[in-house]
């Protein structure tokens, strides 16, 4: 494949919105990134993360060669090793001692080959994916309600709705492009927006109403809504009658869960007026879309939440019609594509499960020698099985379970016990590799991969390679096929291109499909290579003989159950999996922040994206700040029964009193004490197996960090134990935030050693616990460390732009004063990541007369691209006007 400088239309690798991207090589290994105006997911818009994709392509962190037992080897050797070691494990411990842990980052074609190899040929059902942590509850809810893993509606419904309810979704930060679509719809048609979320997120701030619901009580709110729809005769009785079953039983259960307005208010923590207003708005608006995301999914009762929401839509027939319906916002770019191929432990393939007929059908289609006949272990159970020795060999592809799984420290420990840990990765190091991967396989990364992804509205889009693969990186499907061939399955894995895999996948979806499976893209099974390459975004199903997609489903029934009827599903009385206690009196909620993605292996490379929230933090209500003896801007040790982290305290009324929020992104690569996964209890939902990640009982104790500081470096630094640190990317390197409770004098030799290969200018003042080092290589500033009493250390932003600059010897010591050469102050904390606009610049624009976000945008560009900082701009405006009042 030739790589030129022509623009390539591809898709963004981040969230499930699935935005189209136009990537244009700059001829030097980089890409200019723009939104694809023709892509129906985003019509040219990109969020801060997508817009910064060009900053994440550096090769310094890439895994470029296969590595076996710590030694670089060629591919043949690596694939031989994988095949022989897998064979050995299977011979010794049986087929089910092998497991795969896949990722919503994989392309559908990669996913398909992995699933096929495991479930048909290696003969292990233990194939699960990080989608289990993301949207498994929506999947389970949809399957229980509709009979299949189908999202009925589409993004266009957001444009046409009159009421949008966002439940457990901080779309303004996590799905910014869809959120801006909602904002645009509000402007165009006055769409009402209600946000149901325990936190007053940036999304909630934009809403007409924010219902700060008690954690885990969404089911109560929607059960109450169902009873009120019934009691005020707002039901679509014809739809219920014709297309559903189970309404009566579900309504009766709803009355038990929400027996009265007062009980509903009490359980949800909302006022009766808030509940009534919500019910009225929902009931009285025909065109209503209820969006749900991780706040619903990452719950031990997430499936009940989904079916309770779906029930209200079924009961009013508000489904599958323009401007209506339940709509799940997916976390990952290809969570849905992974499910289509069967990349979950409780699916076999192509939306088929483990009914004997289905197993037999897939076996015949694949000509599979070792077809599995039942469900495998879901993610949390799978890693428990690793820990207790049932799983001996694990192949992790494109994900970082040592960070992201609940009880992640235990997961990391468990990984170390494996006989065989295979990791297919882009990066040369992460916490999972660090757990002792025996084989490291360099996989192609986003800009090099070729295949398809499916977004949250069932839209299959091509992801196209735009840059050549560096080093010896290979597509995941190639790696898997190579192993399959060595295991003797070459004939079934003789793929030469993603197009060939896609055709097989599409053919399976239509194989003996008499309409019982909604997922049917057999209309695409005979695409030629060129047609595949040119495939325009298309929504499934695409049955045989059809080349057009399907925008909505179920508007006129036709559910994917044996009787074609949707199911009302009675919910259990919602209670959180673990109760708070005197020892752990708080609820720890976890989630994403605006400018980072997952474990930051990519977004962490972008200077722009690092600046918004540079350190791992915990949001704490001011009442709890006082109650736990913390201070705003200080540090807290956050502890649960499973683990602990030390995080910067942000006092804010965004969270309710009694609840705290910490982001999931920091790893052992990017922080010393910022891993939050280890704290999460992860009790799982009985249907979806998805772990509860947003309500772990926790406690906090203040951590006094009397010393603080920063480091700047071009590459990694081995910071000494005893320092708290976190790291972000800056132009040309990294900036490290440092803190220490203990005196740092004992660390001074180790700190000096950080730059032992450089010429160093140093300020050392042990009595004040001050050490400042500026390191020079070839007369240029190569790095720095500044540590001193907290609050008295110059800001790193002043020095960071000087890294890489040349300094005359006589001027070097002056750098240690930490003062800017021209007296220019740093621009303050970053607000707008798209245009790198800091808080100070925005305040200056306000001072110069900007009175709204549009004027700020006109003055300094902030907020004019993805819009995810608009809530923050509004907050700044409000602060200024409050201060002026």
């Amino acid at each position, binding site marked *: 494949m030739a790589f030129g400088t022509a623009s390539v239309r591809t898709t963004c690798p981040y969230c499930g919105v699935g935005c189209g991207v136009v990537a244009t090589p700059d001829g030097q290994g980089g890409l200019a990134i723009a939104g694809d105006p023709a892509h129906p997911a985003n019509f040219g818009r990109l969020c801060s993360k997508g817009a910064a994709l060009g900053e994440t392509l550096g090769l310094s962190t890439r895994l470029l060669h296969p590595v076996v037992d710590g030694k670089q080897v060629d591919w043949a050797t690596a694939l031989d090793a994988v095949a022989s070691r897998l064979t050995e494990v299977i011979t010794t411990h049986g087929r089910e001692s092998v497991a795969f842990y896949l990722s919503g980052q994989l392309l559908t074609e990669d996913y398909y080959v992995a699933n096929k190899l495991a479930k048909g040929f290696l003969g292990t059902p233990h194939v699960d994916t990080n989608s289990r942590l993301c949207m498994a509850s929506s999947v389970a809810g949809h399957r229980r309600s509709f009979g299949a893993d189908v999202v009925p509606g589409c993004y266009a419904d957001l444009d046409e709705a009159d009421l949008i309810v966002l439940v457990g979704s901080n779309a303004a930060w996590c799905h910014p492009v869809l959120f801006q679509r909602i904002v645009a719809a509000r402007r165009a048609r006055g769409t009402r927006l209600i946000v149901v979320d325990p936190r007053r997120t940036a999304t909630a701030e934009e809403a007409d109403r924010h219902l700060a619901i008690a954690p885990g009580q969404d089911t109560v709110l929607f059960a109450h809504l169902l009873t009120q729809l019934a009691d005020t005769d707002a039901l679509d009785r014809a739809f219920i009658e014709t297309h559903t079953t189970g309404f009566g039983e579900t309504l009766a259960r709803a009355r038990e869960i929400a027996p009265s307005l007062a009980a509903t208010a009490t359980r949800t923590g909302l006022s009766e007026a808030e509940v009534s207003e919500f019910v009225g708005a929902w009931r009285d608006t025909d065109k209503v879309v209820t969006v749900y995301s991780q706040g619903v999914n990452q719950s031990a009762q997430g499936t009940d939440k989904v079916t309770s929401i779906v029930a209200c839509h079924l009961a009013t027939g508000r489904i599958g019609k323009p401007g209506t319906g339940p709509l799940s916002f997916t976390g990952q770019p290809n969570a849905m594509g992974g499910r289509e191929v069967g990349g979950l432990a409780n699916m076999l393939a192509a939306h088929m499960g483990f009914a004997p007929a289905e197993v037999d059908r897939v076996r015949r289609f694949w000509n599979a020698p070792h077809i599995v006949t039942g469900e495998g272990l879901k993610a949390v159970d799978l890693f428990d099985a690793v820990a207790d020795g049932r799983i001996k060999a694990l192949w992790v592809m494109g994900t970082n379970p040592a960070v992201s799984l609940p009880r992640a420290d235990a997961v990391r420990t468990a990984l170390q016990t494996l006989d065989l840990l295979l990791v297919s990765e882009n990066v040369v190091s992460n916490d999972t590799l660090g757990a002792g991967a025996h084989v490291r396989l360099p996989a192609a990364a986003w800009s090099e991969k070729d295949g398809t992804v499916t977004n949250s509205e069932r839209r299959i889009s091509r992801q196209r390679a735009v840059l050549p693969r560096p080093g010896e990186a290979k597509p995941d499907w190639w790696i898997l096929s190579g192993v399959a061939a060595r295991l003797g399955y070459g004939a079934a894995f003789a793929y030469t291109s993603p197009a060939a895999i896609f055709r097989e996948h599409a053919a399976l979806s239509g194989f003996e499909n008499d309409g019982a499976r909604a997922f049917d893209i057999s209309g695409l099974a005979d695409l030629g290579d060129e047609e595949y390459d040119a495939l325009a975004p298309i929504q499934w199903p695409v049955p045989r003989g059809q080349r057009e997609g399907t925008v909505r489903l179920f508007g006129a029934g036709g559910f994917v159950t044996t009787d074609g009827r949707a199911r009302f599903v009675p919910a259990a009385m919602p209670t959180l999996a673990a109760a708070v206690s005197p020892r752990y009196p708080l609820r720890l909620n976890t989630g994403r922040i605006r400018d980072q993605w997952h474990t930051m292996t990519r977004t962490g490379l972008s200077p722009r994206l690092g600046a918004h929230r540079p350190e791992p933090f915990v949001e704490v209500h001011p009442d709890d700040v006082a109650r736990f003896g913390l201070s705003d801007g200080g540090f807290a040790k956050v502890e649960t029964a499973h683990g602990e982290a030390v995080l910067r305290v942000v006092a804010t009324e965004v969270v309710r009193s009694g609840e705290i929020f910490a982001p999931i992104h920091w790893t052992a690569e990017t922080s010393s004490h910022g891993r939050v996964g280890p704290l999460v209890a992860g009790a799982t939902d009985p249907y979806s197996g998805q772990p509860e990640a947003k309500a772990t009982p926790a406690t906090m104790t203040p951590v006094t960090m009397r010393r603080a500081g920063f480091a700047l470096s071009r590459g990694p630094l081995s910071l000494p134990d005893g320092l708290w640190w976190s790291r972000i990317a800056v132009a040309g390197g990294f900036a490290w935030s440092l803190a220490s409770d203990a005196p740092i004098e004992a660390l001074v030799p180790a700190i000096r050693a950080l730059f032992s290969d450089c010429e160093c200018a140093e300020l050392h003042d042990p009595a004040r616990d001050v050490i400042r080092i500026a390191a020079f290589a070839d007369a240029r500033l190569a790095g720095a460390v500044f540590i001193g009493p907290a609050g008295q250390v110059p800001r790193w932003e002043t020095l960071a732009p000087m890294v890489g600059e040349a300094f005359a010897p006589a001027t070097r010591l002056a750098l240690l004063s930490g*003062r800017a050469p021209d007296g220019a102050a740093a621009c303050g904390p970053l607000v707008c990541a798209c245009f790198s606009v800091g808080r100070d610049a925005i305040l200056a624009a306000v001072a110069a007369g900007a009175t709204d976000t549009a004027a700020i945008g006109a003055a300094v560009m902030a907020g004019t691209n993805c819009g995810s900082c608009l809530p923050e701009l509004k907050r700044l405006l409000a602060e200024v006007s409050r201060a002026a009042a």
Partner: protein
Amino acid sequence: MRERLVVVGNGMVGLRLVEEVTRRVPERFDITVIGAEPVPAYNRVLLSALLADEVTDEECRFRDRRWYLANRVRLITGARATGIDTAEREVRIGGHGVVPFDRLVLATGSEPIRLPAPGMDLPGVITFRDLADVALMREAARRGSPAVVIGGGLLGLEAAYGLARAGVAVTLVHLADRVMERQLDHGAARIVEAAMRERGIDIVLEAQTAAVEGRDQVEAVRLADGRRLPAGLVVVAVGVRPSVGLAVGAGLSVERGVVVDDRLATSAQRVHAIGECVSHRGTVYGLVEPGYAQAVVLARRLAGEDARYTGTLLATRLKVSGVPVFSAGDVTPPAGAEVITLSDAAAGRYARLVVAENRLVGAILVGETRHAGFFQDLITRRADVSGMRDALVFGPRAEATAVAFEPETEPAAEAVAEAA
């Protein structure tokens, strides 16, 4: 009748006293100056610069003989005072007889310490104290034979620097683990050593001289560890001691130096002492600056004022081998003191401050002495620095911001002049 004022010693301090006295009370004294060297007082501090050809003979001179005549000062050169009779108020001068006095001032300075090692009397073994030594070193440079300088104090460094600049291959051997250990800590010393090495001077630290070897002329220096350093010239610069022989012979109270009080009076009536030969409040100063201060105080007293000398802050501000060095106050931090260091060894920059009880009590600057005056002033005034403690090492606050990143302009010539 004028009082007879006799000054023994025609060094820099002796001359300064004479200048001050003749300026203040030109009619009061008949002054006689007795100098051992054959020439009038000259700038001893510039000897290494002279050797290095950085200054001329002319620039080292202070006052010519006409000046002495014009001011009615009798200058006896090439004459060594050999005794004092305090009762008779006479100074004996070898074969020249006696000089009676009403007031006697001892400004005999210091004499080099000689090592108690074999071979120190071989031709080619010299000290570095006067113009005669410079002449010998120049001669050695012409011969092109290598030189060994024994002693890494200020004097030794100056000698080595001067020799190196004169084109001699120089090895400096020093007993301590760093040069100028009395003025500099390790960090500062390393920078000075690096500057020396950059000028081609080989430095051997922690080296004890066992012997100087040679038959008719020095040929090598042998170290205690057996190493043998070939040398056609050996400069012994292991230190100086106060020249107190005269005072001891006269029965004056002498400790390390001639004991003087704040009036610079010795234990004998009408006998004063100033300069490097004195011990004042237990301190013997090895630098010219306190001597000058003493000269001024004594001159004022001789003029009838009630001036007192209470001591001088030990401050060294000069160029060591071309590297500006400033050292003031307590270099060894007292117990409980806080030490702040700012260093850039590769750039030849070093600063170390010692702060005790919120006061700056010591400072060392190497390579960059722009703020020497600022620090010296803080030490002298015993100023409370708690308000500027954390940025102190960067100098005066206003300047640190404005000038911090400016390329520096080094007032080289001025610094040399200030060395006196």
